[in-house]
């Protein structure tokens, strides 16, 4: 436990020193600010492209458009930036051999993996909360009469999908031991989830539903209860990924 806390502190310090924390926070803050802004400006942008003789009537932008932008940006760019930044989670220390000293001094390998996962989850949580807070504030400011349902639950689903993705990333990083292999396997996991989504019955149990059904939840076209099984499966898969990482890392030759 002591080793776990010490290593967690070291991890957080490392993210701050390598500017990764800074980049994550700024990029998510920028998303948070631009989401409502793009929703508000969309009619203007479209108008500037229209030439004479073409008439397009656009509905007045609403809070829904801002949240559409939020879930589009956070699920695509946001998750991509997060995975790229965390791709070196294990590889840099393995290639430099800096872990060996700590492990021979009695740090448990389980503690290493667990504190790495905790640290990634912490950074992701702070980023998504920041992004959500900024989007919420500006959306309320720009579209005061917007009514949304299930908003917090929808963001919670997105957060959970991030956890699932981080677990997959940790697992693949432990398995391959380098950052490109980790990125490749994580990408493969997402692609497999997307392909599985074509089968209608799988959709209910597919973790990727957590990142695709968000707008449906906000618009109330999808019942919150239909996602409960997906949530269960995602938590279970994340747990399996993290446990497998521990098992593999304990057997790994450093």
């Amino acid at each position, binding site marked *: 436990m002591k080793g776990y806390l010490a290593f967690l502190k070291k991890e957080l310090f490392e993210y701050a020193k*390598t*500017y*990764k924390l*800074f*980049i994550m926070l*700024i*990029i998510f*803050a*920028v998303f948070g*600010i*631009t989401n*409502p*802004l793009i929703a508000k*400006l969309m009619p*203007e942008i479209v108008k500037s492209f229209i030439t004479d003789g073409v008439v397009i009537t656009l509905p007045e932008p609403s809070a829904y458009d801002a949240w559409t932008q939020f879930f589009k940006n956070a699920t695509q760019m946001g998750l991509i*930036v997060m995975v*790229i*930044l965390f*791709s*070196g989670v294990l590889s840099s220390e393995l290639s*430099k051999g800096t872990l060996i000293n700590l492990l021979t001094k009695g740090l448990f390998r389980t503690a290493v993996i667990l504190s790495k996962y905790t640290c990634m989850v912490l950074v992701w949580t702070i980023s998504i909360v920041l992004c959500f807070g900024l989007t919420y504030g*500006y959306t309320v*400011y720009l579209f005061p009469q917007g009514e949304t349902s299930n908003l917090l639950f929808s963001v919670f689903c997105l957060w959970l999908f991030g956890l699932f993705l981080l677990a997959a990333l940790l697992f693949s990083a432990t398995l391959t031991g380098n950052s490109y292999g980790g990125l490749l396997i994580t990408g493969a996991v997402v692609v497999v989830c997307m392909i599985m989504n074509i089968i209608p019955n799988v959709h209910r149990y597919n973790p990727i539903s957590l990142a695709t059904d968000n707008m449906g939840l906000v618009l109330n076209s999808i019942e919150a209860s239909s996602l409960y099984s997906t949530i269960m499966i995602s938590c279970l898969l994340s747990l399996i990924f993290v446990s497998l990482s521990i098992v593999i890392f304990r057997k790994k030759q450093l």
Partner: protein
Amino acid sequence: MDLATLKEYLPFLVPLVIAQLALAITALVHVLRHPRYRFGNKVMWVLVVLFIQFIGPALYFAFGRGEE
């Protein structure tokens, strides 16, 4: 877009500009002070960091920076 609309969106634009500048400058300073990269050269990274907004500095810190 005229000046009045620009003024209306100032509360959005100012933080955005500050964020972009902060990212670009931090990355630029790092590029110039640590002239060893995993791949590419100084000119390439300066251009990437300055002209690819938001993603450029992220790419640099994730892939470009060499070991200390």
